[in-house]
């Protein structure tokens, strides 16, 4: 409801320019990835002569992006799908819907953990991983991700489960379900929207991470995709189209997830920002 149509347009034009500025970097990179080296050197702005997949194929095969891609998929799948959602929903259900001594203390512990950024604990964590032989292994990186994102996951799921009416739980108990039955048959299905939202968000966090992965997976064959992209930069500084192709390969899964699950991502980001 701007005062007049005019003020509306006065604002709309800079906003449209900003929208272009938001999209252009990705479009530019895509265009560069389609160019040959010669084309890029001659003119980096013009549209690529043809849609050439040569650079993408090169980045995927000979540069080794396929291996990094697979590493990332494995780690993200194990961290998020298997562990974070399972452990997080069990804890969220117990904290939100079961009454037991010490529950508020435990909750405070999780609250405290949420305030500890990875940068603050990375040195001792690296040492623990080295001492237990988990450094440079898939389980080590998965465990590091689970530790990093579990507090957030528990908070989101606890607050979601707190909105589930207690009557539903009581009715299920009267029907003869055990506590575990209530968790498995009632809480998991009811929690599906929250699990999807927190799952997508965690998957993005893990997929996009570089610091934890750099620290926990030092060897080249264990590189995750984002670490792989950073290593491309030095190797292909004179072959920008191949570099751009590597960047694109790492970005496309995120782009696809964003197109289909934008709402769930936004829900996770905004949870707790208005009224708790």
């Amino acid at each position, binding site marked *: *409801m701007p005062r007049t149509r005019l003020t509306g347009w006065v*604002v*709309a034009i800079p906003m449209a320019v900003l*929208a272009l500025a*938001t*999209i252009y*970097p990705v479009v*530019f990179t895509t265009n560069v990835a389609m160019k040959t080296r010669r084309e890029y050197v001659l003119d*980096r*702005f013009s549209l690529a002569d043809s849609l050439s997949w040569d650079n993408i194929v090169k980045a995927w095969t000979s540069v080794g992006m396929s291996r990094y891609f697979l590493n990332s998929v494995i780690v993200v799948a194990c961290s998020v799908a298997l562990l974070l959602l399972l*452990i997080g929903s*069990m*804890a969220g259900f*117990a*904290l939100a*819907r*079961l*009454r*037991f001594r010490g*529950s508020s203390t*435990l909750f405070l*512990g999780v*609250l405290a953990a949420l305030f*500890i*950024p*990875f*940068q*603050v604990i990375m*040195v001792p964590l690296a040492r*623990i991983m080295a001492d237990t032989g988990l450094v440079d292994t898939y389980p080590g990186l998965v*465990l590091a991700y689970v*530790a990093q994102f*579990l507090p*957030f996951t*528990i908070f*989101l799921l*606890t*607050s979601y489960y*707190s909105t589930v009416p*207690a009557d539903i739980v009581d009715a299920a*108990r009267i029907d003869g379900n*055990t*506590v575990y039955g209530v968790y498995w048959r009632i809480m998991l299905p009811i929690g599906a929207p929250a699990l999807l939202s927190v799952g997508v968000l965690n998957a993005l966090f893990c997929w*996009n991470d*570089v*610091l934890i992965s*750099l620290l926990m997976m030092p060897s080249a064959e264990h590189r995750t995709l984002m670490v792989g992209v*950073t290593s491309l930069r030095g190797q292909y500084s004179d072959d*920008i189209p191949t570099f751009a192709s590597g960047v694109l390969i790492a970005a496309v899964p995120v782009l696809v*997830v964003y197109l289909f699950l*934008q709402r769930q*991502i*936004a829900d996770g*980001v*905004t*949870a*707790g920002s*208005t*009224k*708790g």
Partner: protein
Amino acid sequence: MAAQSLSAVDAAVPASTAGAASSRRNRRGSRAERLAPLVLLAPAVLVIAGLRLWPLVLGINFSFTGDGDRNGLAVGFDNYLTLLGDPLFRTALRNVGLLVLLLPVAVAIPGLLATFIFLKVPGHRLYRGVYFFPAVLSPVIVGAIFNLLLAFDGPFNALLGGLGIPPVDWLGDPDVAIFAVVGVHVWATFGMALVVFLAGFATLDSSLLDAAKVDGASLPQTIWHVIVPSLSRTIQFVFVTTMIGMLTSMFGLVYVMTSGGPEGSTYLPEYYVWIQQGQMNQPALASAASTALFLIMLVVGLAQISILRRAGKED
């Protein structure tokens, strides 16, 4: 992320009283039933205590020991004195100061944009989805793309050239590079704050806006007297999350765009920790830098709690 925790606390309080009914039934239940909370919580407790709380204690402890020859020996505050004497760490702290100064801008931009989207400027349906997009990209991807865009002979300088502005060495000039990195961070994350603001607007009482309109308030008046007071909680949330984001999620950008350079001008505490741990093999010094970063975060966190408490009392 941190403020979400607080809301979860609020939400969890009624939950535990509501659970009283089921606990009465629990007492009649089998032993396995009574142990259920323990079983359900055990993995979470193990992971959080062992891999987050315990390392924090270890790290603080570690920061008072030596590196190299003095490995494991108690050295008191030596590491902290080394930090204060290190020009790179001082640059990192100065850059944190710069981030704090830029914080209001980083909050105001998405706030204003969200206001315009809420007021339905032409095209408002499109903007949310477009602006939010870079926020889901990895800092590595964003940094790599801007390496190309901000190159001396890159598109950005070409655009400026078209406007008659001479080219700038965005990532090579020590006086400019930190602003370039922070600028890219803001570009990449303003959509996150925008979405949070829009969620706040969704809770806004529209009759207040109608009243302002009837009274003939101008747009700036409406923003200042109606929107800002109504969204105080959201604004505080964005302030804190934006600050935490600046302190803990710029590693990827610095790593890819400048590697801390030129001349160490783009160092941030988190990058300093990484260099000391990963490259210089000085874990005790790195721990001291970590602890310093934690103290900065703690101040931010405590400020948040007190602000939210005050806001809660006003409700």
